């Protein structure tokens, strides 16, 4: 059982959800997600759980954190829940980012809510050789993230679409600006699928390895329903499930739709 400790707006329509847990089946890793039931006990609507990436995790304090944007019915209901409310979560689910390889110069590129999983990743990577490129609509959406990432002491670059920070534009353009002078050995990225496609294209072209995390509509989050199938580029063309084999995939592993 999970209990809400805090559920507060940290940007325009963006909420930080901090939960306390009794116990977890395993330690959550960066890139994994939880599937959260947002309906009242006994209510059949909304029916499906909502998947959210782990933003932060603290084993000592038995805390798991999420950052979510209010976009529809489920996140609206979630945003109205008060502290002390008990929540029903499934997880941690899915395959995480890989951490253990010797990756050299690492870039993290996050757009919009795709930033959420990168924070816990950045924290766990523990490498000093990390550069983080984040983009969002405006400054207000980035402020919370900026503060958090600064706390990790990583090199941080910010862009916004509606106003000039480092540049006025997307995380992608920001990163591309740096790419030539500063080629990474490995890339982690999460954000709009269009951005993922571009990052993937650029990396494959330049022989840069990396991983991406995608958002697919999910029925179950546990691998039973095949709602989240991704076409692969493997020879056997076997589909992979975003909820089990993903949401993190190697660059070039699955077919993205831009």
């Amino acid at each position, binding site marked *: 059982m999970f209990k809400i400790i805090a559920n507060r707006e940290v940007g325009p329509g963006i909420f930080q959800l901090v939960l306390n847990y009794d116990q977890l089946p395993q330690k959550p890793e960066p890139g994994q997600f939880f599937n959260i039931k947002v309906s009242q006990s006994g209510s*059949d609507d909304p029916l*499906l759980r909502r998947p959210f990436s782990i933003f932060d995790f603290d084993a000592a304090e038995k805390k798991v954190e999420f950052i979510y944007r209010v976009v529809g019915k489920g996140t609206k209901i979630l945003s109205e829940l008060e502290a002390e409310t008990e929540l029903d979560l499934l997880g941690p689910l899915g395959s995480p980012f890989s951490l253990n390889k010797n990756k050299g110069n690492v870039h993290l590129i996050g757009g919009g809510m795709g930033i959420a999983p990168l924070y816990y990743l950045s924290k766990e990577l523990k490498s000093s050789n990390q550069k983080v490129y984040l983009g969002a609509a405006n400054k207000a959406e980035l402020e919370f993230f900026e503060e958090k990432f600064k706390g990790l002491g990583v090199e941080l670059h910010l862009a916004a679409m509606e106003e000039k920070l480092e540049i006025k534009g997307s995380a992608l353009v920001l990163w591309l600006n740096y790419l030539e002078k500063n080629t990474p050995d490995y890339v982690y990225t999460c954000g709009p699928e269009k951005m993922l496609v571009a990052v993937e294209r650029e990396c494959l072209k330049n022989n840069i390895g990396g991983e991406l995390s995608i958002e*697919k*509509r999910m*029925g179950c989050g546990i691998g*039973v*329903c095949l709602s989240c*199938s991704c076409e692969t580029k493997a020879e056997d063309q076997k*589909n992979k499930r975003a909820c*089990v084999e993903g949401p993190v995939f190697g660059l070039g592993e699955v077919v993205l739709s831009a």
Partner: protein
Amino acid sequence: MPEKQSKLEQKITKAELNLSVVMQSQQKSKQNNLNLKNPLITASGTCGNGQELANFYDINQLGAFTTKGITVKAQSGNQTPRIAETSAGIINSIGLENPGVENFILEVLPETKEYTLPILANISGYSEQDFEVLAEKLEGREELAGIEVNLSCPNIKGGGMIFGTEPEKVYQITKKVREIYSGYIIVKLTPNITDITTTALAAEAAGADAVAMINTLSAMKIDIEAQKPLLANTFGGLSGPAVRPIAVKMVYQTFKKIDIPILGLGGVKNGSDVIEFMLAGATAVGIGTINMTDPAAGPRIIKEVEEYMLKHQIKDLSSIIGAAH
């Protein structure tokens, strides 16, 4: 006081409860019956092939397990999005993603050998002949207690559901499958029909051992921001609690018309829903969408059914089949 006392004395305890049900076979030998330790059967396509649920509970606690629908050849399924949420329901258009019957036999069936509960293979076809091929391939497979003939998939073109809306086709396909396959045969019917009793009767006449109802209802959702259908496949099948009242009605209506058992399903979420289907006339009850939203639902539902039995002092669960008539 004396009444209370005597009631207490007679009280059925949990240990005495008998949840087992028998799905009778039309083939006269008793050994063809499908004996279930309880009425819960996983609904095809909502439980993978069982391994994933093992993280949540031992599926051998259930009455039977139905595998994801298989076809003659491997299918990669429809484009995504394949799922849309609706009010108290979901629309899916998975499109029968499956490895094909050959791989099913080679890869999936061996995995089910560990299970002690009856396994049913759900089969789908794009043509009448497909069903014959599938029945032939599965005939004699000892891993299986039977097959569920899906004449109702709304998610494949030029086949699937269309078979299920015409009593003659239901009759023909069922008859062919019956001639080939000697195990237990359940024919799964579509609710997208004016009168489901016509196809239920056709299945019975052709030798089906049981009918399953309902598969999903044809439905769609439009993405109003993009101004186009949300599912890549445009249409899909509606399931979940939203459809339960339609399913219960169909079971109720069919119960008096046929003599073979009904596997009732559609929107089961709680023990009370299992009871509702059984009172309407179902011998067994499928659990589908609930496994997706609440993977540990199986044992919870069984517990709730037991609680109901204790409350109403029902010793044999099968005694309530059709009791609401």
